[in-house]
């Protein structure tokens, strides 16, 4: 393994606090009158996509924004519950930009790029200002000022929230800014439109091929830059907290056109989800991490104790997070909480014998009273009751770890540009800021930082450097890409093998969960790669895809997405196999401390791994970007 010259992050040098400022100062600018001559294609309308499209529109660029949903307001950022971090230090509890930066680097188990994380921490404060100015109704104190709560992996209260609907309120803010630009004519919105391929001309990203999900029309859109803000790929596990439509197709097809895929094995298993009920289950529902502010996590202390929660006396309960991590208690980071929950039920100490542990609000209700809890968390309690028919005010919640977020994604440099010039990647779709584990309330922060504040600067710099010829849809490369898309759809629609798409997706999910989930080992991963290859072969032989191309066809939509997941799953296992260390959410059983914590190997793996596509059945090339830590000390992560 050697460092490849391709993976130059192009970070500015100098003191870390000055890098973003220096970068902005040295970036070329586009004259206001010239901005309207540039077409920018933004794929995805979540926090990153909507914020980028709105802001680029405000600057005067010609923006086209695409989403598969019927309205940009429905992107999955909307489901984020608990909050958004910002280093405002409104609580006077010792917070600072440097502390948010440090917590995030440490939370990611020292596998993120320092310069990016520092920029994120700097921008965090502007995001809150922006959102409040837009009318986002954050929680407030009686004095009229903004309130905060705490999230995992930190010892300060820096999380801003809007009850349990923070993502919804932030997304609606960005959506409204976007609609204003649609009205102004600077942004053209394409809802119910899915990107199916990337058009690369002379090595530069110049457009996308899309399918209109209502009419089936295939179209090529060309522009001067392409932004992918298409979210994460947790649905590779079939069951995850992601929305049903979340998929990897945009970034996967960009990968196949030459964009490197970084750290695909870094996935986040969220500790507090509602347990699986049956085979028919279509998705998992998260209970916000913010509930760990008031809830205490426990399991029966004795192996084989299957009694109902209320029948287990206090002395026979094991508050295992408080016991093992006295300084962070129930607010340890997600990877640590999930792993410990897994230890409990692997050891026969699951709630009622299930793969679950308890999240108990008894003490908080006794201390603060039910109305106070209701005011802050009422909608989450209500959601839990609707799904489980149990009242969490009187019976502890049962919680279960579930795939939630993917830290991996397309590799990007400091300007958020991928290895294909002109292709920018933002939000969860890129690999950037969270290393091997994301801290709670940091996803909203990153999506909005990328969209509102980073991309509008860096794309300007890219366009101002010039050198882009005029291209048209007659270009042979554009035509070939569109033909490739049409051929794949035709191939799928010819399938009448009798097996349903979901049955394949479920099988893939089971392989991924068992072998590439919360714990991984060499043997399991090697087996998983073989199993996925066999499943993929079977998919193309025996799947059934009904309906036609020229109409609204949800089967065809799923068929393409699952085909991509069947390829991505293999790359995730390959990445997990090659990274012979444990870090954050990537836990290789062969590499753990005596206490069962993740054991990093900084000698061999203090780097980003980025994979380069070499053909469908060929092994991809692994490139590395070495990570150097100048502002924080590389230490064994501890929350004890």
């Amino acid at each position, binding site marked *: 393994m050697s460092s490849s010259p391709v993976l130059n992050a192009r970070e500015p040098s100098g003191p870390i606090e000055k890098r973003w400022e220096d970068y902005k100062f040295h970036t070329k600018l586009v004259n206001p009158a010239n901005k309207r001559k540039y077409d920018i294609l933004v794929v995805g309308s979540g926090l990153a996509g909507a914020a980028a499209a*709105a*802001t680029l529109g*405000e600057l005067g660029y010609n923006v086209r924004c695409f989403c598969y*949903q*019927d*309205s940009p*307001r*429905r992107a*999955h950022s*909307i*489901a984020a519950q608990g909050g958004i971090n910002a280093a*405002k230090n409104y609580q006077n509890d010792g917070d600072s930009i440097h502390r948010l930066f440090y917590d995030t680097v440490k939370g990611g188990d020292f596998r993120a790029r320092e310069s990016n994380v520092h920029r994120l921490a700097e921008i965090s404060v502007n995001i809150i200002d*922006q959102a*409040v*100015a*837009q009318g986002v*109704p954050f929680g*407030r*104190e009686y004095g*009229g*000022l*903004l309130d905060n709560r705490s999230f995992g992996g930190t010892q300060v209260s820096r999380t801003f929230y*809007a*009850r349990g*609907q923070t*993502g*919804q309120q932030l997304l*609606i803010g960005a959506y*409204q800014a976007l*609609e204003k630009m*649609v*009205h102004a004519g600077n942004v053209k*919105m394409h809802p119910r439109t899915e990107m199916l391929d990337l058009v690369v001309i002379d090595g530069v990203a110049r457009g996308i091929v899309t399918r209109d999900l*209502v009419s089936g029309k295939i179209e090529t859109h060309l522009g001067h830059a392409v932004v992918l803000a298409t979210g994460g790929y947790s649905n590779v596990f079939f069951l995850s907290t992601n*929305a*049903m*439509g979340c998929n990897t197709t945009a970034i996967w097809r960009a990968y196949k056109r030459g964009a490197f895929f970084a750290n695909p094995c870094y996935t986040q298993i969220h500790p507090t989800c509602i347990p699986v*009920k*049956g085979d*028919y289950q*279509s*998705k998992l*529902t998260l209970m916000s991490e913010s509930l760990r502010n008031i809830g205490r996590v426990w399991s029966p202390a004795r192996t084989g104790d299957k009694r109902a929660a209320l029948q287990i006396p206090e002395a026979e309960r094991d508050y295992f997070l408080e016991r093992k991590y006295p300084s962070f208690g129930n607010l340890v980071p997600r990877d640590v909480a999930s792993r410990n929950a897994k230890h409990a039920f692997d050891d026969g100490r699951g709630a009622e014998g299930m793969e679950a542990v308890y999240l108990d609000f008894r003490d908080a209700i006794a201390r603060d009273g039910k109305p106070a809890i209701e005011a802050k968390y009422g909608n989450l309690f209500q*959601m839990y009751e*609707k*799904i489980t028919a149990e009242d969490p005010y009187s019976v502890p919640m049962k919680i279960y770890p579930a795939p939630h977020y993917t830290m991996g994604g397309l590799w990007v440099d400091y300007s958020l540009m991928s290895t294909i010039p002109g292709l920018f990647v933002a939000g969860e779709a890129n690999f950037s800021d969270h290393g091997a584990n994301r801290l709670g309330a940091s996803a909203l922060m990153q999506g909005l930082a990328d969209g*509102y*504040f980073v991309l*509008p600067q860096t794309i300007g710099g890219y366009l101002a450097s010039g050198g882009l010829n005029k291209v048209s849809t007659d270009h042979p490369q554009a035509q070939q890409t569109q033909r490739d898309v049409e051929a794949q759809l035709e191939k799928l629609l010819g399938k*009448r093998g*009798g*097996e*349903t798409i*979901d049955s394949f997706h479920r099988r893939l999910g089971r392989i991924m969960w068992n072998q590439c989930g919360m714990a991984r080992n060499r043997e399991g991963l090697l087996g998983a790669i073989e199993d996925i290859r066999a499943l993929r072969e079977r998919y193309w032989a025996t799947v059934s895809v*009904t309906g036609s191309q020229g*109409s*609204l*066809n*949800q*089967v065809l939509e799923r068929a393409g997405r699952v085909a991509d997941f069947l390829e991505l799953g293999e790359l995730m296992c390959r990445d997990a196999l090659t990274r012979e260390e444990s870090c954050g959410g990537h836990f290789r059983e062969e590499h753990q401390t005596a206490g069962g914590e993740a054991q990093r190997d900084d000698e061999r793996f203090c780097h980003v791994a980025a994979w380069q596509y070499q053909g469908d059945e060929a092994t991809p090339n692994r490139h590395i970007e070495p990570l150097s830590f100048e502002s924080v000390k590389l230490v064994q992560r501890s929350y004890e």
Partner: protein
Amino acid sequence: MNLTLHVWRQADRRSGGAFATYEARDISEHMSFLEMLDVVNEGLEARGEAPIAFDHDCREGICGACSLQINGVPHGPDKGTTTCQLHMRSFRDGDTLVIEPFRAKPFPVLRDLVVDRGAFDRIIEAGGYISVRTGQAQDANSTPVNKQDADEAFSYAACIGCGACVAACKNASASLFTAAKISHLGLLPQGQPERHQRVLSMVAQMDLEGFGSCTNQYECEAACPKEISVSAIARMNRDFVVASLRGR
């Protein structure tokens, strides 16, 4: 449990539609309503038939994609619940269910149970925002907001834009949707400068889209999965009168 479903099937926007009957067998009471439809659909798919198209995404009751008129009621029988959060324990073995798309002229059917709610986006586009360029904002705590106002604004901001209010209204009025946004922004100090222009533009767009008028039946409030209060409509009407008298 076993149920009989009468489901609206329609090929596309221009075609006529009709009810088709399906049996849903061995349904668990723990399934969500949409998981029950998934089971029916997987059966159809396995037989090579086109599954029933319906909009859905987050399945957590927050994205607003799911719709469905179930036995004549938008989002079905449970109060304050979206279709995706409705569970089969709300029904009984042997029940017959009539499942239709949301019915309103401004929401044309695209296929089966899928409708086009783009009119809602255009109402927001007409003025449902506070104009602030990215990077212009002052410190977030420089404008304190009375907690009561902030909480009330939040209760209107909770709208998920699903369209149940329109589907429940005999006039297909979008008043609750439009008024919720006007009230959310109008209650906050940041929303004051554009308050009058906003109500005039949004109401004009609502009328232009072909939504009917409000005749105070409160069906919208009863159907709203987020239980948004009709007092929003009173606020909208008050703002509209003031704005009209002031001539903007």
